[in-house]
């Protein structure tokens, strides 16, 4: 998944935005409504937005629809509707799709765990402590996000080659962890910065030991940010193709499976897995959005 690394910044920014979102910032916009004539211009922009959003969704709908295609080998032309592919996902090619999918999940979970831990530690240090070489460290955290994936992938592969490390699942995990750390730092940092230090002080005043204060006060307050970072990093890892392709050897992941089978035709089962992942993710995100809107409404009522 090429640009997905940079996409992370976007998703990270979104998570960040959710946390910092209060009411007051919107105030400027509310009073901006002023009496105007209703003309062509007022319809142009909404109409454009609808068309643009529909355009963005076309390939998703296509992938979803073709997961129900009664295809035989390659899933190119429509042959009829069936639920078979959903019910027998793992039966094709001796379960190659499912094996690749399982690998992707394992790699995603392990690299998310490592990257979230290391990234959260860095984020806390950057906001809360003074240390030397701050700008060098900021640069070191920024650069992986500004480096094209093909360079990251080729670089790691060159290093593994020079050191003589065979490529397998471990090298994929090492690679994914590397590009996830920066995105975790960016996401968690926003949360740490918005944390009121007085809460931790209160904990210390009440004779909490440093570790008690961290686990009972700081960590619970950081949890939304850490969760957002973990989700982001899992999404990045799960959909990464370019870096994986350079460092995977013979191990298959879901994107790699799709890439390799692209030349000979992709089975509908791949569409099934992609659609299922999509539905799962979209339900998660919509639920988060709805609860956020509900919370904003509640707060607005209180204020």
């Amino acid at each position, binding site marked *: 998944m090429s640009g997905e690394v940079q996409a992370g910044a976007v998703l990270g920014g979104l998570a960040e935005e959710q946390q910092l979102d209060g009411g007051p910032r919107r105030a400027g916009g509310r009073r901006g409504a002023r009496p105007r004539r209703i003309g062509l211009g007022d319809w142009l922009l909404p109409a454009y937005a609808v068309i643009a959003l529909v355009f963005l969704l076309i390939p998703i709908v296509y992938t979803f629809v073709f997961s129900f295609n009664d295809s035989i080998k390659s899933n190119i032309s429509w042959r009829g509707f069936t639920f078979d592919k959903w019910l027998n996902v793992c039966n094709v090619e001796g379960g190659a799709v499912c094996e690749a999918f399982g690998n992707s999940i394992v790699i995603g979970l392990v690299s998310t765990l490592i990257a979230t831990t290391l990234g959260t530690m860095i984020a806390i240090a950057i906001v809360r402590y003074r240390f030397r070489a701050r700008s060098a460290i900021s640069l070191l955290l920024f650069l992986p996000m500004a480096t094209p994936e093909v360079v990251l992938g080729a670089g790691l592969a060159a290093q593994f080659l020079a050191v003589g490390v065979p490529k397998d699942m471990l090298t994929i995990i090492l690679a994914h962890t590397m590009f996830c750390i920066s995105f975790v730092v960016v996401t968690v940092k926003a949360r740490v910065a918005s944390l009121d230090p007085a809460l931790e002080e209160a904990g210390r005043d009440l004779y909490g030991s440093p570790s008690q204060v961290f686990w009972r006060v700081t960590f619970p307050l950081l949890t939304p940010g850490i969760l957002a970072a973990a989700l982001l990093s899992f999404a990045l890892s799960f959909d990464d193709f370019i870096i994986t392709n350079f460092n995977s050897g013979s191990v298959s992941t879901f994107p790699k499976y799709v890439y390799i089978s692209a030349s000979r035709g992709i089975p509908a089962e791949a569409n099934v897995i992609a659609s299922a992942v999509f539905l799962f993710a*979209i339900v998660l995100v919509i639920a988060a959005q709805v609860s956020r809107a509900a919370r904003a409404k509640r707060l607005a009522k209180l204020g």
Partner: protein
Amino acid sequence: MAFAAFATTEAQPQAPRRRSRIALFLLLPGIAYLILFFLAPLVSLLLTSLQQPNEFGDIGVYDYGFNWQNYVDVVSVYWEHIVRSFGYALVATVLALAFSYPLAYFIGVTARRWPLLQGLMLVLVIAPFFISFLLRTLAWKQILSDESFIITSLKALSLLAPDAHFTGTPFAVIFGLTYNFIPFMTLPLYTTLERLDLRYLEAGSDLYASPFTVFRKVTVPLSMPGIVAGTLLTFIPAAGDYINASRDFLGGPDTQMMGNVIEANFLVTLNYPAAAALSIILMAAILVIVGVYVKRSGTEDLL
């Protein structure tokens, strides 16, 4: 956004206060990880790019050296790919900006009064992230293939020459790059436009500026941080991408980009020095372009 996030640390009100061994403990593992798996690979990429073929002539075996000739060779062989990469990425970035700006404006400004609608539209913008990058690119390939409904009807209407193709052309590659990176453009634009204070626009029209002048002199300058972040988030991954340009996806033999030749040299012909030299050229060019662009657009504080 990611780019902005790094700038804010220094100026934060709760500036870093303490210096302690805890900071070292928090930073060390993550920073060490990045040095080991991000910086060191870049160094080994540089060393690899200067290697010379093994004197016994084994394929894929190289000795360390100082073979500058590699760079001259790759530039003379692959200059077309280099030009193509940056050309395609530039066109795709401009198209994505043109596509995204009105959409982001609608979500961020017009839809301000309806937070739930805003949230749902944002979900639709990032929805493509939740379906595999490779599958959505393949979906476009099939939607726009020669036998597809769209292309055959365009041909029937004589809007397209009977023997014309879409997939495999530069247009298809640029189309794919644009589509795949639109969310990276829309989200940063949205983030700045959402904060746009509409009173400035009113002031502009109160001073008898035409709507177009207000847009050019007020809206655009105020949304500059979003434009810069969005164009970078689109341009960098687009320049290094090789999925869209790949023959199995939207590209053809004449649309190969730098990423394709890096992959082919590294993973297929095992010509590591050439792949490494190309990667270094790509990385250096991007760093120079980003540096100049950020300086020129007057948004240094983004980095």
